[in-house]
């Protein structure tokens, strides 16, 4: 089950279906959110960034947790594919973290009047970005890829313990220093016309992640196993 050829075959076969599903849900969510949901009475139209910012931020954290779970699996069961999953997920996670940061910053400009505010969510997202950077940097510095996988697994597992602590302590640090800033996303009660498209967006982002992960997993498998005979047969088609 956990063998690379099996995964490669599965990934190649399901890729178009995953792509279709991801694109449809993603587009529906974003069009609904940006084009058709009602305007917020307090922030105006700029609140529509929520449909990009919040799903990205959620995904950034979820991908990190996903990497930690794969890391744990690769540490305990030595599953090759789990190591490859971490390595393919890391750049995607870093990408969505970057999106969350940039959109948060762009949203901050018209709302707070500055490009950056040390708001709890933005701060912990920034720290998450550093964690991703550490993982990518460590992996790229180790030549032996299986060794790199396990090194990164250790970091990811440590991260999943520390990330909630970081989040908690940043929340608490923020209330300590700025007792009453209103945060971007905590409108007291969102009407269903606003949060339903948000839900669809989150779902679409998740599908998109699965699609992107499968896509990059294929590349990872082939580049690791390029000298194996099954790659010669299935990929190079000799």
């Amino acid at each position, binding site marked *: 089950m956990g063998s690379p050829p099996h995964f490669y075959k599965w990934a190649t076969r399901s890729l178009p279906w995953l792509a279709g599903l991801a694109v449809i849900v993603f587009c529906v969510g974003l069009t609904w959110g940006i084009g058709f949901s009602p305007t917020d009475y307090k922030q105006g*139209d700029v609140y529509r*960034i929520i449909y*990009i910012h919040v799903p990205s931020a959620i995904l950034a954290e979820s991908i990190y947790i996903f990497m930690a779970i794969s890391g744990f699996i690769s540490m305990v069961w030595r599953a090759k594919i789990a190591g490859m999953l971490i390595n393919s997920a890391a750049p995607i996670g870093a990408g969505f973290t970057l999106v969350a940061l940039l959109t948060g910053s*762009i949203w901050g400009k*018209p709302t707070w009047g500055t490009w950056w505010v040390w708001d709890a969510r933005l701060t912990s997202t920034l720290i998450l970005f550093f964690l991703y950077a550490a993982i990518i940097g460590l992996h790229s510095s180790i030549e032996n890829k299986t060794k790199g996988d396990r090194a990164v697994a250790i970091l990811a597992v440590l991260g999943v313990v520390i990330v909630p602590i970081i989040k908690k302590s940043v929340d608490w640090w923020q209330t300590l220093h700025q007792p009453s800033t209103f945060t971007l996303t905590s409108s007291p009660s969102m009407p269903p016309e606003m949060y339903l498209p948000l839900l669809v967006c989150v779902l679409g982002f998740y599908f998109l992640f699965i699609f*992107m992960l499968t896509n990059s997993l294929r*590349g990872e498998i082939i580049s690791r196993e390029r000298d194996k005979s099954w790659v010669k047969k299935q990929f*190079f088609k*000799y």
Partner: protein
Amino acid sequence: MLDSLQLLFIMDGKGPYVWACLLILIIVIFINLIIPVIRLKRIYREGTLEE
């Protein structure tokens, strides 16, 4: 119809913010999708050259 599209685009002057966000999202997704494809292509080229 055209009017409402224009309204949507401008969004009370806040349009550029929203559209910039969307653009960033799409660029990041695109880069992440294209890199594995380029990688596979390169491996394929190197692999077939060896023969």
